[in-house]
């Protein structure tokens, strides 16, 4: 198995280990995570390969890949990993690194996933809680595809699955907005 030699520095491995609280070097490439992962087939590099790429310090390839964005955090792999590595935590670290380093989404789907998370966070920032209809509407506008998921809209609205108006908001929606502002400053000062 190829890993970087003792004398070679691998800053990627150090950062990932520190931020995720895991030790990626423990991975012995058994591939159980790949067999378990429900979305491995959609990934540029399935989890096992991501672990190996971290070990050999291939930062650009990893951050440009769709893998971390496709991870559903279902934790099935973590439960079965014989080396007890919490792989979703590693994936989470990779997503945060991609955002911080302004890595452009490599595909339309990754762009969509990131849009969705941004809009969701915006809803919470604005209302303190999620507002499903506006979330869906903004997603369609931002992704320039007005009619996606529209087959669901009439049914969902008629059945009251999705409400026309935001639910009872948090009284201190202002406090939540402030939390977002402070957190943003903290992230920037990293």
């Amino acid at each position, binding site marked *: 198995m190829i890993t970087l030699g003792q004398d070679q520095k691998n800053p990627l491995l150090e950062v990932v280990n520190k*931020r995720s609280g895991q030790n990626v070097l423990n991975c012995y490439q058994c591939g159980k995570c790949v067999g378990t992962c*429900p*979305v491995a087939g*959609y990934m540029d590099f399935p989890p096992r390969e991501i672990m190996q790429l971290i070990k050999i310090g291939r930062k650009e390839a990893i951050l440009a890949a769709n893998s971390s964005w*496709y991870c*559903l*955090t*279902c*934790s*099935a792999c*973590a*439960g079965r990993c014989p080396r007890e590595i*919490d792989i979703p935590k590693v994936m*989470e670290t990779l*997503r*945060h690194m991609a*955002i911080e380093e302004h890595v452009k989404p490599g595909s339309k*789907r990754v762009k*969509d*996933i990131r*849009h*969705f*998370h*941004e809009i*969701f*966070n915006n*809803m*919470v920032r604005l209302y*303190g*809680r*999620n507002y*499903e209809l506006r*979330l*869906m509407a903004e*997603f369609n506008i931002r992704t320039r595809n007005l009619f*996606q*998921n529209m*087959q*669901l809209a009439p*049914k*969902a609205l008629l*059945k*009251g*699955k*999705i*409400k026309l108006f935001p*639910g*009872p908001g*948090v*009284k*201190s929606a202002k*406090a*939540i907005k*402030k*939390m*977002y502002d*402070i*957190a943003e400053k*903290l*992230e920037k000062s990293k």
Partner: protein
Amino acid sequence: MKKLTYFPGCSAHGTSEEFDHTLRKVMKTLEVELEEIPDWNCCGATSAHAMTDNLAMALPMRNLILAEKMDNKTMGIPCASCYSRMKTAKYELEAHPELAQKLSSIVEEGTFKGTVEVKSMLQFCYEEVGLEKIKSLVKYPLTGLKVACYYGCLLTRPKAVTQFDSPEYPMSMDRLVEALGATAVDFDYKTECCGASFAISTPEVVLNLSGKILEMAKEAGAHAMVVACPLCQSNLDMRQPDIEKLQGVKYNIPVFYFTQLMALAFGYPVSDLLPGKHIVPIEPALARIGETEEPAEKVTKPKKAVEAESEDN
């Protein structure tokens, strides 16, 4: 009367109104008083932890602090995703006091003490109410109804965080529905992921993953599925027509929240289940209740075996 701190979560007012509605009824019967956390906020769900370290912890931390100010031992959460975020935050904050210290600059509601237990409503029913009590309150046993209990990812995983049931083959919900008189079928896809928050951004993943789950439930002979998570419910129910179109099969498998079945068994009328909220009609499954064993179980050999035998002759 027992008191429980209650965190309904955002979907309780929208996609999972029937979960919240039946839960409140059921808790009344079980003599549990729900005290909703005043001014709770969104837990941040998948999106906060996908994008940021700090908010992923700070949003649930605010709710935990508000819950600690109330006088109850446990906080109950119906939604599996809210539960997972809150429980993960509690786990991390307890393991890393310096993290709580750091986040106190973001959360102004007070300091985190870690004095409230966080449980999913399924866990609360199973551990704190108990199956004996639930069984004793059943007025209308759900005999004849075969269900596949689907737990999804987050109720039992990661094991170190949830400390509840098995991460691979949990049985708590199965035992609960059996206490109500229903039959829980053996179901291999109990803890497979339904695609969760990809419903809007990446629907093809949800159709694929949820499709497999429905396929397995059908194969296991279930009349209905039972869940404890709003996202699982909407993926399996609302997307079922799309899945059927994609696979070219008909499932007609309604997807209940476990609290809907509890309400029914406790004698609440069907209208209290809010049947209008379901995309796949629930009536055909309800009609199975009271049915005795299906007409003398025929011993049917698999088609291939029959063919092979006829070739031998």
